[in-house]
Structures are given as C-alpha cells and as structure tokens.
C-alpha cells in the first residue's frame, strides 16, 4: 500500500507531503528523485515506476506538477498510478487547472481531499461527485465570503447519502428545476501516415460523455444504431454489464452532472478528413521544405482549429518558414507550430521555407514527424450513431440533447 504522497513543482520543490501510514517517508526521497531526474534527463522523467534505494516510487506528471507516491512493499503498480491520475483529475477539477500557485493557494483543500481519498494507503473515496459533497470546491462566493468574514468552512457537516446507497456515484435525493440530459460523442482520431504517404493506421478513440441533470433516481437506457463498429469498450462503473453483454445496450443510473459513460475504439478506418503533405528537398547545405494541407474527404462540416506541429531536426541551424495562410511560430527548442485555424474554402493552405543545415552537412538525413490537430463539430467520424435514449422512471419528460465532435488525436504524418 502507498506510504506517502508528495506533490512536486516543476522545479523540484516539495509543495506538500501527505504521510499515509505509520511508516513515515522522509522528504529526502524527493531530493534523491529530483537528482535522478536532473542527472538522467528525460528518459527517467517519463518512467512511472522507479526503484530507489529505499522505496519504490510511482510518478505521474500533470501540467508540470509531479505526483510522487512511495511504497516499500509489493502492490499493483497500476493501482498506484491510476490513483495518482485520479488525484490529479480531482484536483484539477476542483482548482480549475493545475499549477504550483493553485496548489499552494488551496493547500488546505488539497490536504482535505487527499485525506478523504486515501486512508492507510488504500483508496477510500474517489468518486468525484461524493467528494464534491464532502468538501466544497473553492468558488467565487466562498472566496468573497472569506475575504469579508475571514472564514468559511468547506467541509460538509454531513456524510453524503450516496456513500450508503447501492449507487454510490449518485446523490440520493436530487431535485433539478430543469430535467435535462445531454449525450456527447467526443472522438479523437489517431492516424499515422508513413513517409510514402500511405495510411498505416487510422482509428477512432471515442468517449460518450453524458451531462445529466435529472431529478430522483433515473434509470437510463442508451442504444446505438450500429454497435458493431466498436472494437473495444470500457464503461463507467454505473453501466450494468449484463444488458450490454446480451443486447449491446447501455443501461445505467447516471451520476449527477458531467461524466464519461463509456469509451470505445473503432479501428481500421479507411481515410482521414484532411491530408498533410510535407516535402523536403536538400541541396548543398540547405533544405527546402514545403507542407501542403487540404481536405481529403469532406466530412460535411467545416474543419477548424487546425494546427500542424513539428520539431526541426537537431542538425538544422536556422529556418525561414512562411505560410500562405495562418501563422508560424518557431520556439527555442526548434518546435514549429503552424496555426491554420479554420480551413479556408477557396485555397489549400501551404507553408514553405528553407532550412539551413549545420556546416559540413550536405543534405538532411533525418526527418521530423508532423503532429496535426483539428476539430470537426457535429460529426462523429467513426460513423457511430445513437439510436435512442430512454428514461425508465420519468417524473417528467426530460429534455434530451445529442452532440458529436471529432478532434485530431495522435494524428501524425511522417516525412
């Protein structure tokens, strides 16, 4: 079981420590850890399980904050990592983001949350809805109150009823003025296009996000028109597995508010909505680059938020890039990002420029990979269609809404 959790800032400062068991862990472990990070560099930074001389360390890095947990005995490593991720999720949800200042400013809440989320190294209450009832998130009202009166308590005086019910993710007696439930399909397209321009891999990772504001104890059934497209699925604990096994129907009592009902994957898609064609031609110490972006397969809706990012190879000393649409930004670590925004109707965006190579180098022999991001509103590229959403015990007819969205996920184009 976990013995201690440390929160570290991106400069290695220990923001706070929470001892979980009687076996105290000295802070020195953080120094050791940070020294390792400094000496071994990036390769260690991303290793989630490290065995130090005294403890096993698990680390999860979120937005510059390192969540470091220690243990000395055998435990499922994924349990620790998953828990740290959950802590990070809850914190960023509570604090509206994560950074050093936010944690310092709200350290009392962080402590209270950690104390509630884990007891003696074993996760206790991790359901965000219940946590919200037990420990009130900071908000404008409480901030103002605290300035005026000097103090407000954010600790609830009563135990949330949900801890006792058989649906621990839901408040027992909810009343909403408006009865509404929204279902969003949020999909991310992972695609890899190899150097020959062929589509190596194209798949959709999607989530069904539900925002439910329903009174009472609603029992929902969601069915899809084409459930056969799913390759893999994972469900929120509220989903009853038996109906899914039998008829591929999602039957559940939703938590209140926003939650992820399921995630799925659809593999082996045939084409991508946009294409990115990079081209390099080297000649005696300089290299001409040109990148073309265009619509390959019109999804029917406009494509926006397009950005193309890539990192210049280390052997490039200087670059001069100019787009015919959007703007290009080259950062100090040689990352270039070309922000296109909405795809123009009339022309295909392109970027061209020259790269100057290191002296002595004739031509470029390593080529960067282009990361492409985009967003298409109103379309689920996997082709998944929601058939219907039924409410079993309606107090009143709820308002139902459906939306879809596709983003670029790990969309990469090799050159």
């Amino acid at each position, binding site marked *: 079981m976990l013995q201690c959790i440390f929160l570290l800032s991106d400069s290695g400062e220990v923001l706070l420590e929470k001892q979980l068991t009687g076996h105290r862990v000295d802070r020195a472990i953080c120094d050791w850890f940070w020294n390792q990070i400094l000496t071994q560099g990036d390769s260690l930074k991303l290793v989630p399980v490290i065995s130090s001389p005294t403890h096993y360390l698990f680390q999860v890095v979120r937005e510059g904050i390192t969540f470091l947990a220690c243990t000395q005995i055998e435990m499922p490593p994924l349990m620790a990592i998953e828990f740290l991720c959950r802590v990070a999720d809850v914190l960023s949800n509570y604090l509206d983001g994560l950074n050093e200042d936010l944690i310092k400013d709200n350290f009392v809440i962080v402590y209270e949350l950690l104390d509630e989320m884990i007891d003696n190294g074993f996760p206790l209450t*991790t359901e965000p809805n219940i946590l919200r009832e037990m420990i009130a998130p900071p908000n404008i009202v409480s901030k*103002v109150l605290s300035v005026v009166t000097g103090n407000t308590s*954010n600790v609830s005086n009563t135990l949330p009823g949900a801890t006792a019910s058989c649906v621990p993710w839901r408040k027992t007696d909810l009343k909403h003025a408006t009865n509404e439930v929204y279902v969003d399909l949020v999909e991310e397209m992972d695609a890899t296009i190899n150097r020959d321009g062929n589509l190596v891999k194209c798949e959709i990772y999607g989530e069904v996000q539900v925002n439910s504001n329903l009174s009472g104890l609603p029992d929902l059934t969601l069915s899809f028109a084409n459930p056969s497209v799913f390759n893999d699925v994972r469900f929120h604990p509220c989903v009853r597995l038996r109906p899914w096994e039998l008829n591929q129907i999602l039957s559940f009592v939703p938590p209140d508010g926003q939650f992820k009902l399921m995630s799925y994957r659809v593999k082996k898609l045939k084409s991508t909505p946009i294409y990115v064609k990079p081209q390099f031609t080297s000649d005696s110490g300089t290299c001409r680059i040109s990148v073309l972006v265009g619509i390959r397969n019109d999804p029917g809706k406009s494509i926006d938020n397009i950005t193309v990012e890539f990192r210049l190879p280390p052997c490039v000393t200087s670059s001069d890039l100019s787009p015919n649409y959007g703007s290009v930004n080259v950062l100090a670590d040689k990352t270039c990002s070309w922000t296109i925004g909405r795809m123009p109707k009339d022309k295909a965006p392109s970027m061209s420029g020259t790269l100057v190579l290191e002296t002595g180098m004739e031509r470029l022999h390593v080529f960067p990979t282009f990361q492409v991001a985009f967003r298409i509103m109103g379309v689920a590229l996997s082709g998944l269609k929601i058939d219907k959403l039924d409410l079993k015990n309606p107090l009143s007819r709820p308002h139902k809404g459906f939306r879809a969205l596709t983003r670029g996920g790990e969309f990469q184009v090799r050159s």
Partner: protein
Amino acid sequence: MLTQFGATAESLSKASTMMFRIGTDAHLYDDPDDVSIAPLLDSKFESEKCEALKRLLALIAQGFDISNYFPQVVKNVATQSLEVKKLVYLYLLHYAEKRPNEALLSINYFQKDLGDPNPLVRAWALRTMAGIRLHAIASLVLVAVGKCARDPSVYVRKCAAIALPKLHDLRLEEHTAAIEEIFVEDMTMPHELITTEYMKSMIAYRLDYNLAFDNLHIFWRIYLSSSESQHIVGMLLKDNSPGVVGAAASAFASICPNNFSLIGRNYKRLCEILPDVEEWGQIVLIGILLRYAIAKHGLVRESLMLSFEDLEIQSQEKDDPESSHLTCTSPLLWSYNSAVVLAAAGVHWIMAPKEDIRKIVKPLIFLLRSSGSSKYVVLCNIQVFAKAMPSLFSPYYEDFFISSSDSYRTKTLKLEILSTIATKTSISSIFLEFQDHVRDPDRRFAADTVAAIGLCAQKLPDVSNTCLEALLYLALSESSNNAVALMGEEEILLVQVVKSIMAIIKQDPHSHERVIVHLVRSLDSMSAPAARAMVIWMLGEYCNIGVLTSKMIPTIFKYLAHRFHSESVETKLQIVNACVKVLLRAKVEDISELRLAISYVLELAKYDLNYDVRDRARVLKNFLSHCKGFNYLEEADYRTEFNDLTYVFAEYIFGGTKKVPSESFSYRFYLPGSLSQIVLHAAPGYEPLPEPCSFADDETGHSPTNVHNDHESNEIDDSDDISGSLDEENTSDYSSESVSGEGGDSYIASDSGEDEEAGTLIHLSDDAPDSGDHDRVSVKNTSSGLMDAGELMSKRALESWLNENSDSGQNSSNLSQVQRSLARISIKDIGQLVKPKSYTLLDPTNGNGLSVIYRFSSEVSKVSKELACIHVSFSNHSEEPMCNIFLAEEKPNPSPDSSEKSGSPSESVLVSHDKEATLIPMEEIDRLNPGQPADRVLQVRFEHHLLPLKLVLSCDGRKQQVKLRPDIGYFIKPLPMDIESFLKKESQLPGMFENIRRCTFSEHLNQQNDKDEPPQKDIFLMICEKLALKMLSNANLHLVSVDMPVAANLDDLSGISLRLSGEILNNSVPCLVTLTLKGTCAEPLEVSVKINCEETVFGLNLLNRIVNFLAEPPR
C-alpha cells in the same frame, strides 16, 4: 477579529498582482508563521483556531517540524466544528507517534465521538484513533473497530475495515518486541505462527517453568486480538454492501492473506459481488480469489501456466467454482480502471484455458490509450505475455506501432514486443514502419529499431535477405554520411547496423559472402571504431568462405597495414586477431602473399603505444611462429609435437565455430500486474501463487484424494519392491563410486555393515514417501505431488541423470563428500566437516587474557544419559602463565555427593541439586603457559532447555561468573532408524505432536557465487549437502534419508526433503525432523521444518532452534 483583518489586509497587498489568489489560503502557505500561532490556537473563536491550524498544516506541507504545538492542538480535538476537527486530526495523524503521552489526552474525545449520531464524525474518529499508532490503546482501538464494524452506516463499516490493517501493523511491532523479550536468542516469528498450538505450548511453558506471567499475557493479547481482527475481517467480508467488502478484502490481504478458510466460506458470494465492489477493492479481491482458487482447485488442465511446467500438477476438470471466478472477472475487463483490467487479465492468463485467453488481448491493448504512465506498465506486462505466447498478440501488431509522442522507454518496449510477435504475414508492414523509424531524429531510437530489424531477421529466416539488403543499404549510406563528419549519436546507428548485419550473417555465413564484401569495401568510409572492428572481425572469421573474399584478403591487409597506425585500439586488436585467423585458414599458396603484410602489421602492433595491443601482438606472434608456414615456409612439413599443440590451441581459440547458446526464455516470471514484474526483482511482500491444491477445506476434503487418483495406475508398478531394489542398486553404486574416486575411503571402510544401509545420504526413491496416512498437511501434499510427477520420467532417465552427475570429477567428489559426512555421523565421530558451533564463555578482554570457548559435542556422556558433553577450550592470550584454572558451579555451599569420579579433592565437587544443573567438573588445569591451549570436557545437566547455566571460573584464585548457554540441539542424541520406521513413527505422532515452521535458507547462494561456474546438475546435491551439514553441525541428529524430486526443472528445488531423527537425552523420547524445500536455486529457499515429538514443548523449542540456525547466515 482585529488580527484577522490585519492578516487579510496584508495578504491583499501582497496578492494585489494576482487577483485570483484573493480569498484563498495563499497567504497562509506563503507566510505560515508571520503571526504567532500559539495564541490563535488558544483563541475561543473557531475561525481563529482554524486559521492557526491551517498555518500549521502549511508548515507540515513545507516540511517543518512543528510537533511543539502538540499540546495546544490536542486540546482542540474537543471542538464542535467539523472543519477544525478535520484539521486537528490531520495534525494528530502526522505527529501522534512522536508525542504518545500527549496524544493519549485525545482518547476520551475519540471515544465520545465514536458515539456521535453523525456517521461522518464516527468514521473520522475511528480513522484517526487507529491511525495515531499508540501501543497503549491498541486494545481500545480493537474494541472500537469491532463496534464500528457493526455500525449501521456503510461508510463507518468501510473505515473500520481499513482501520484493521493499521492495527495489525501496530501489533506486528509490539509482537516482535514481545518475542524478543521472551527468547534470549534473536528470532523473528512470522505472524501466522500464532496458532492455537503455539498458545497451547506457551501455556505449558508457563506451567512448567514459571515464565513471567506478563509475557504470556502479551502473547494472549496478541493472539486474541489477532484472532479477533481476523474474525472482524470475516464478518466484514460477509457484509451486504459491496463497498465494505472491497475494503474488507484489502484488510484481508494485509492481515491474513493465507487464511483461505475465511474466503472458502464466502467464495461463491464474493465472486457474485465482485462486479459491484468499488474499483480499488476489486483489484485486491481479484487477487485474493485467484489465490484461493489456485490453492483450492489448482489450475485448469488446459491453462497456459500448466503447459509451461514440466511437472504436471494435477488439477480438476474445469468445474463450477473456477469458471464462476472467471465469468465474474470477465466483465471487469471493461472496467474504467486500468488496474482492474490488468488484474482481471492476469486472472485469465493464469486460470483460463488457452483458447479463452484471447479475451484479454483487446482490453489490454485498449489500456494503451490511457495515460502515459499506465501505458508503460501495461506494455511491460504485455511484453511478458507476448514472449510466452506470441501468437496471442501477433494479429494486433498494428497497435504496437510507435507514435512519436511515446516516451523513449515506451518506444523500446514496443519495438521489443513487435520483434517478438512478428510473423511471416505481418513482417512486411512492420518493416515498412521500421524503415520510417530509422530516419527518426532520435538516433538512439533509430539504433534500437535497427537492432529490432536484426532480431526479426534472425527469427524469420525468410525475410533475412530483405533485411540484410535494407541494412546494407543503410550501412553504406550511413557510412557515407559519416564521412561528411557527423559524430556522436550518428555512430550509434552505424554500429548497431553492423552489429545486426553480423548477427544475421552468423546464421548462414555462406550465402552472405556478397554482404561481407560490400561491407569490407565500404570500410574506408566507416569512421566509427566499433563498426570497423566488427567488419574486420567478420573479415577474419569468414575469410575463406568464398572465392571473392579470399581474393580480396591480400589487398585488404595491405590497406589495413597502411592504416594501422591511425586505427583505434579496439580496431587494432581486431586487425591483429584477423591476421591470425587468416593465416590459419589460408591455403599454403596464398601465404607468401599475405606474409609480408601481416608481419608488418604485427611488427607495428608490437611497438604500439597501447599495452593491450603490444601484448596481444607478442602472444600471437609467438603462436604464429610455430604455425605452419609463417616464418619458415620451407620447413612447413616439419612439425614437432609442440608446434602441433600451439596449432591446436590457435585453432581452438580462433577457429572455433562456437555455438552461441540460444537464449531460452525463462518462464519463471512474476505475477502479471505486480510491482515485482516491473522492477524485475521480488519486491518485499511479494508472494508467488500458492501451491495448487495445497488448501483442503474441511467440508470438502476431496482435493488430496483427487491428486492421487489419477496416478493410481502408475502407483501400482511403483510399489515397494521396485523402488527397494533400486535403492539397493543406488547404494552399491555410490559406495563403489566413492571408493574408486577417493581411493579406498577409510570412513566407508570403517563403517559397519548395518550402517552402510543407513549411511547413504542420497537415498533416492522414485515414489513418494508413503504419505497417504498423513497428507492433511499442505506441505506434505505438495511434496508428494511433486514426487508423483516424477513418475512420468522413466527410471532410465533418473539413472542417466545420476550417472551424468557422477561423471564429472567434481561431482563425484561432491557425492562422496556428502556420503562421508554421513558415514561419520553414523559412527558418531565429529569430523572436519561437521563443525559444531562454538560459543565464547569468556572473552580474553574480560578474563585478563584467558579465553574460554566451548562447544557442544555429540558424544553421549558415559556417566548419565541426562548429561550433555561440552568441550571447553582454554587458551592463554596473556603474557604470563596462569594457574589453577577451574570451572565449577555457582552454588556456594555444595553438598558433596557420592560421585563415581571423585578422584582428587579439588575436582570432585559434584553438585546434585534437584532444581539445579548437575555438573561433572573437568580436571583442573594447573598451569597454562602463554599461548598454550588446553581442552577439557565438561559434562553438564541442564535443567532448562533455554535458560543459561551460571558457572564460576576460578583462575589464579580469582573467581569470575560466566554463563553457559544451553543448545537444545545437543539435548538429543542420534537415533538411527531407516526410512520405513521413520515414516511409521511419524504417522504415530500427528496433530498436537506435530509442529511446522518455515524459514528461508540462503547459504547455498554464496556457495554458488563462489564457484564461477557451478555445473547445473550438482546444485541439488550441493544444497542437500549444505543443508545436511548445517543440520548436523548444529544438532545432534541422525540423517535418515534425503529425497529428491526427479522430474522438476533443473532449477526447481521444490520437493527435496531431508529426514532426521534423534531422541531426547533424558527420557529417550524420539524426535523426528523433516525438512522440505521449496524454491529455486537462484533464490533463497523456503524450508519448512516439521517436528514430530511427543514432548511438545521440547519439540517446539528444538524447532525454533532449527529455524534459527537455518536462517542465520553462514559463518
């Protein structure tokens, strides 16, 4: 209120630039101690207390020690405000252990809170009370936990379940302290030992020997609380609420993970409730159910795990309980929690029949889409799965394609998996990917890709040509790139390319001559020394495989000779080596051409700046001078014997086509999903799966019989007559072997005929020791299971195995050594091998230079059978001689007794007191010169097995008190018996006369490390010998038999068992010791020691002693 306002105003000014920080606790974190905290804590306003506590919390967060506020904080525990309470609890949990006395002040309030109507208050009070770790209130907490476990609120019951491990943890500490108090010798007792038997014996202890009541009290308390907490766990496991069951599962896992009967009662229900348990509980519960299912039912016959094991652990046909476990875990493969999915996948991996394992693949791969951290862990697990069963993942190769956003470690893991699962059909698309990666800006990754290409090519010979083409192209283009002047990272790639090419060529050098030629031709443009060295190695190695190369050789050597001075050391060494190889293989007619270049190279090397190169050149030159036709071409036919010899040596060193032992994948991996598997060593607390079918439930005691049923047919022809005759055969084999090996071993010769039979240490029997009567004990079960498995191997195989063993010289000597040690025991003589441990009676620093050492001897006193013989060695380390050294009992007024040995007046003070030890004193040493040693024999009757005996040592008239510690191992004497009577006797002493303890034995590890290359097969013998020696050196026992499993893996020592017998000195009650091993050679062995003895207390003490000395490191 004023201070409050001031603080706020101040923080306002500070945070004016950052508006969003207003109203948060930012100022408290930034300047926690800018106001004095103490008065705030004593304030009567809750808000001020709250602020003070927040400041304290900020100080804790920043790592300051603020335990000095403890008394003031503790007072506030009485508050009504929940927020203040929470903050106080946070503080208390952090510091209570440091300030136990003040923390006790809070107990009353906890007690009061436990009766609060608000469940949240009750839960918090319980959590804090259990968490503050005060030994003094452990029993109170236990009562509180018991009470809360019956609380109406689910949340409180859940907290009660989580509080149990805290209590357990605390108790473990107390426990060890208590044990140390009682036993003089250091020992750590595993927790599960607190059994009823143990308590029983402890009571006996008290009654007989008047041990301090306190200690017993502690034991009782520990025992009771332990059983009480197990009872609570059992109760909570039966809880209706899934949330409680999850927490109870985690308590079970940390308190009593092996108490399977607790699970057995609820197994069905736990399986049903599993999908509803909250996610974290699921992870633990899955593991518990898995262990239980294995221990109870064994593995399914078709499962993957079984096919790995050579020994067939019998298992039942797939029946209800197991499949119910599988069906209840399979929906968990859809869980949102990656850890749950992995745990469920692990269960399927271990339990499911092979065709069902496919189910886990997709969920596992889907996990890769979750966070980067878990991706790494999942990939590590997939890697192990894929290595064991590549076909499982081979259709999904696309999912392991590398994305540029992966971390370096993830990329390498994916590459490894890809090269494992590549098949003929998928290899082409995998190659396309690899080709892209080769041009990745991260050159380290590109080099790893090249290595993966090499691996694939070796695995799939069909594609090796294509690979080779691609690699060659890469090498050529890279080397031309290199020529431009790229250093550092670029080199890695080129070196790796050449390395991969080398590996592929090795498989079939003859068909790849062209590649070598290409490489050699591009030698000029290669600048990386390692790559050059490898190309030159290939040149030397394959210099005569084809016409082309042999034609090129002279030219190349001219080139090399020309470039020699500018090469790096690595390359120079390879050039010199290549010279010899070429010469050795060249045809006579080519030699003249080569000779000039080569002798020039060697000449250069001889005067090189580097030592190594010079030395190598000298050695090789010497070689060559004797070789055919190098220096003396005309005398080519003239060969002396010596020349021949060097030639043979040279051939051996350079010409050998060594077969690289193919690396076989070890199937001994850690449990999937465990920490140990990621860090690749057994983390503390790691427990492998229990032995299949080792747990027999009382209600359904059918598993042991099942084990035997399947073997019934085999057992028939395995009856005693065959094994008996085999035994005899073996016996004679051994003695003849050792006689021939040792040249008439005197020990054997002096052996009496009757000892001969018992004298074989290695009594190999094919069948299980007739364990039908008493296989209620799990250990017995497993050992017999292993033995049964042994039957699958034919007798012939066993014989050949044995013969092989005695073939090599070392082994035979080993064998005879083992035998010798036993032969000696049977003639009751202490030899060099059996060295009883010696203890210091008197240190020279304390005794004015006199040092006294004693050791227990295995001799039996001639005077009375109750006396133990002790060898005492005196030696004088001082400058002056000493006089009148004498050891006597402490009692000042001895009543003289009619002793048989009342010789001289000074020596015969034989004390016979009923309650005291009797001592037959030694002869007085009149004079001991400096440096002179003197040995005496002392015969002592110890009244108590454990308590030391106080003696007075007089020397030069001065008296000094010394303590003689008893060694229970010598309160027995060997009782020779054969295996049949041993087993018979053993079966007569079941139940309360039988005690088992486990310990680890690691002495063999050092031994293995010492020898640089231990031949695989004698490890068994070596370990048996070690163990036997250890036993015989520490206890006066007779070695009855040593049984070895035959079919097990070479590495697997499980099933070796040693039987020893002895009888207690003063009442001749027989005492049987059985040692059973478990584990592999490379790790510390788990030894379970069993004692059957009517004298339970004596038996227990002896058991503890044996466990102690087995576990102690070698001297």
